[in-house]
């Protein structure tokens, strides 16, 4: 045994002896690292069997109209084509929707956006399917269009759906804003706008269907296999058990793969597989994906905020309008989360918010990392900066005066408990960025290159809260070879959360994660565990995994005690070795305990099920405790702006997040770095552009996402640990939060460097330059 290994074992033993946590808080290697660096064939497209045929989706070319006639003749006679599927080929329900039944799989006869799918060409090869699809011509009767969500709310506006253009409405009524405004020394109103963002996972949406047993096996890239199973079964008019859905290793997801697009590709592949009795691959290429999948909602958010002279927030009234495009998708929950976060991480005694999720003829929007948070926080943190300037107060000081602390109440009047680690986060980023000294120095800059600091604070509700019951089921089974197999309906799609969930079981059992194996999520084997969304795997799945492991431990430790001729209370397990605390030289190996259990017929499989406590709130007034706990965070960015051109770059980022307990710190840092950079893309460059409802930049050449050359030279990330009440060992969620803050932080940094307020994301150099040419900006300079 090498010295290093024996030292590690000693330290684990010492911990186990004292009953301390094993592995938690260590940079344990993920269960799926090796297959990834080996380039193993584990993704959907790698699993296409011989004899597979290909489905190419085709979509509407107009944003609103009635399909009068589709000429499919040329496509059908194209070489290699086996057929064209349209709505007429659907045996079951022509529906592909997550929440409201407002969207068809193949639109017929009304198309409401250019992302509406009309059907699919099935061919022997992928190029032949694509070439044939290009030959399809469609005659439409054009209908009037509406693209502006604010106009869509007006009386007499073009209706996207018969019921009208409001898909969901919500409100908050806390205190009395009129009374708050009347006591205010300054009342300031401004409107902020955000853009369409594309999640751009490097693997687009793909599904593979193989006919079997009077039904179909579906393998795909997705977040929620059980939801996909239900959606496919509905379309095919099959009992759900005839649709077996397996999640392949998934090449990034970020939200859209929990929404309706995986249903589209999997249902289409399954339809064709049943019809043609062959395996069918339905893979979106990048353009398909960027046109047809869900994006981040553009929001228009107006704030009217009252403050006292000494910088205390007294009232905030907001109007929040989200453009959901032609269909609601998971947007019905996005608007709720945005509304609950409308005043962000601050205590405001009087809050009034009215929000609307609005249909337009743009392509549809839905779930995307942050889930309404990035839009809401961009607006309120921009408003905070504007207020600080009008008060003549340092923006940091103004925020600190108003930020949430234990005992204070957020917008829903939930009282913050002792697990609020916001002040610690602020302290970290302020010190790391040398904020106070630099902010002072940068006030008197001259010259062409000017620096600015921007700060933004985060409150991010944990748990599904308003979206439904928040539960997870995890199966843990010790196999006869001593390895530990873990299965769940919860999925891994890049974050490492599933490894973290397994690390929890590893800690409880005292067996290293290297002995653990992840089963591919499979609806025929694993029970439904709710959607894999809201960054909830470590927190909810981790609790379920902990419960399963504890039940196993309660059988394994007594057995080990018997083998050690000791008592269960004196037996500890570390790194796969059980030992007697009173005589640590007396040991028994994990593999021997497992073998003994198998000899005696002791079952070593367990299911853990965990349901988060209820999160009640009153829909009439938006008041209550819609979240069980909160993640806290703070971000400071430093920009340098070229005053001649408006070009700027982020030279430094300082981020701190209170994650309760970092199960795997390297994984947590990976989320902070990755989420922040994706958020910097949102802040600085990303915008999926629609012109009259047509996406004009559906490719990664014209839609920019950050490259390695775009990231800040300096990035300091800090993990703060103030344990929360919900997660295992106090863990809070972390995958989504880091994308939330960069929008406002960059915008505020540019404002402080130049005097230019850019109120619509992204903050492009063009907008900065145009801003510098106005008189208002000159006033600040």
């Amino acid at each position: 045994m090498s010295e290093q290994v024996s030292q590690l074992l000693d330290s684990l033993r010492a911990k186990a002896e004292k009953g301390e946590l094993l592995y938690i808080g260590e940079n344990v290697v993920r269960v799926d690292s090796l297959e990834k660096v080996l380039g193993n064939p584990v993704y959907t497209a790698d699993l296409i069997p011989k004899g597979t045929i290909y489905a190419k989706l085709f979509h509407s070319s107009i944003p609103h109209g009635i399909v009068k006639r589709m000429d499919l003749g040329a496509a059908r006679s194209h070489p290699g084509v086996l057929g064209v599927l349209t709505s007429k080929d659907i045996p079951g329900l022509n529906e592909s929707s997550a929440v409201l039944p407002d969207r068809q799989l193949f639109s017929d006869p009304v198309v409401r956006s250019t992302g509406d799918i009309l059907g699919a060409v099935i061919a022997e090869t992928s190029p032949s399917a694509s070439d044939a699809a290009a030959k399809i011509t469609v005659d439409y009767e054009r209908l009037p269009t509406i693209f502006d969500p604010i106009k869509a709310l007006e009386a007499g506006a073009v209706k996207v759906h018969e019921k009208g253009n409001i898909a969901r409405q919500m409100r908050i009524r806390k205190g009395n804003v009129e009374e708050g405004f009347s006591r205010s020394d300054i009342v300031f109103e401004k409107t902020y706008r955000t853009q369409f963002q594309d999640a751009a996972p490097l693997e687009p949406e793909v599904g593979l269907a193989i006919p079997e047993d009077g039904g179909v096996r579906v393998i795909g890239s997705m977040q929620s296999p059980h939801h996909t199973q239900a959606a496919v079964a509905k379309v095919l008019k099959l009992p759900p058990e005839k649709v077996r859905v397996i999640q392949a290793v998934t090449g990034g997801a970020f939200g859209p793969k929990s929404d309706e697009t995986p249903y589209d590709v999997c249902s289409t592949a399954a339809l064709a597989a049943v019809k043609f009795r062959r395996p069918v691959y339905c893979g979106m290429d990048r353009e398909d994906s960027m046109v047809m999948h869900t994006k981040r909602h553009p929001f228009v958010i107006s704030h009217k905020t009252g403050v006292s002279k000494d910088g205390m927030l007294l009232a905030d009234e907001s109007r929040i309008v989200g453009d959901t495009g032609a269909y609601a998708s998971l947007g019905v929950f996005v608007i709720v989360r945005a509304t609950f976060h409308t005043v962000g991480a601050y205590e405001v005694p009087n809050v009034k918010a009215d929000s609307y999720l609005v249909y337009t003829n743009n392509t549809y929007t839905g779930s995307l990392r942050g889930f309404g948070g990035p839009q809401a926080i961009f607006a309120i943190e921009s408003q905070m900066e504007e207020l600080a300037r009008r008060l003549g107060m340092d923006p940091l000081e103004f925020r600190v005066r108003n930020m949430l602390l234990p005992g204070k109440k957020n917008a829903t009047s939930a009282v913050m408990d002792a697990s609020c680690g916001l002040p610690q986060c602020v302290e970290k980023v302020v010190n790391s960025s040398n904020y106070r000294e630099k902010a002072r120095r940068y006030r008197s800059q001259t010259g062409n290159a000017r620096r600015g600091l921007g700060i933004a604070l985060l409150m991010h509700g944990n748990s599904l809260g308003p979206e439904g019951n928040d539960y997870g089921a995890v199966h843990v089974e010790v196999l006869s070879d001593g390895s530990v197999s873990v299965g769940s309906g919860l999925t891994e799609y890049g974050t490492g959360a599933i490894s973290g969930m397994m690390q929890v079981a590893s800690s409880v059992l005292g067996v290293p994660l290297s002995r653990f194996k992840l089963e591919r999520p499979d609806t025929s084997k694993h029970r439904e565990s709710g959607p894999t969304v809201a960054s909830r795997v470590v927190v909810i799945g981790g609790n379920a995994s902990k419960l399963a492991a504890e039940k196993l431990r309660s059988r394994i430790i007594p057995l080990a005690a018997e083998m050690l001729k000791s008592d269960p209370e004196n037996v500890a397990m570390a790194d796969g070795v059980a030992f007697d605390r009173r005589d640590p030289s007396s040991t028994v190996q994990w593999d021997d305990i497992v073998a003994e259990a198998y000899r005696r017929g002791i079952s070593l499989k367990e299911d853990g099920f965990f349901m988060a406590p209820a999160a009640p709130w009153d829909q009439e007034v938006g008041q209550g405790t819609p979240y069980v706990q909160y993640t806290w965070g703070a971000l400071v960015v430093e920009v340098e702006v070229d005053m001649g051109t408006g070009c700027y770059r982020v030279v430094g980022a300082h981020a701190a997040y209170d994650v309760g307990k970092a199960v795997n710190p390297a994984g947590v840092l990976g989320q902070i770095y990755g989420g922040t950079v994706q958020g910097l893309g949102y802040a600085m460059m990303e915008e999926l552009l629609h012109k009259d409802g047509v996406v004009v930049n559906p490719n990664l050449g014209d839609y920019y996402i950050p490259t390695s050359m775009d990231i800040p030279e300096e990035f300091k990330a800090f993990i703060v640990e103030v344990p929360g009440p919900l997660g295992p060992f106090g863990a809070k969620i972390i995958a989504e939060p880091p994308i939330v803050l960069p929008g406002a932080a960059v915008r505020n940094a540019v404002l402080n460097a130049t005097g230019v307020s850019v109120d619509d994301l992204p903050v492009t150099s063009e907008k900065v330059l145009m801003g510098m040419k106005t008189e208002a900006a000159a006033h600040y300079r």
Partner: protein
Amino acid sequence: MAKRAVTINVNGAEHPVEVDITDRLIDVLRDQLNLKSVKEGCSTGDCGICAVLVDGKLVNSCLMLAAQCDGRRVTTLEGLLEDPAMKRMQGSFIANNAAQCGFCTPAMLMASWDLARHSPEPSSEEIKVAISGILCRCTGYYQIIDSVRQGCEKGGR
């Protein structure tokens, strides 16, 4: 479609293959030679995750025709799995949590291995340039850059 017989040296072995003249290198590598580490993310040369070495140069295999590779040497990650410098790089990627979804990982490894051959102690700037043609949507690049720096130690030798 017109067919053409070509011979491509892939990972050290000569492969006579019949290709359509419009087949891209990535199609032949993935579909005919079963080299699935080569990923397709955009099909337009923007994301770089299909990167392989052609005669020792990093290229996007979605932008090169298979017919252009007649008589050339192509290297994919599968061909370097026993290479000590690649093993060091892979170990560094694992140790530094550089693979999240893993879809860009093979191309990142190819670019990093290529850098390590030429630059035993690259600066952060050199590393950023070396991987700049490959997009990663998960990591924000920092843990990849750390991995490459450590994986380059002693160069590729």
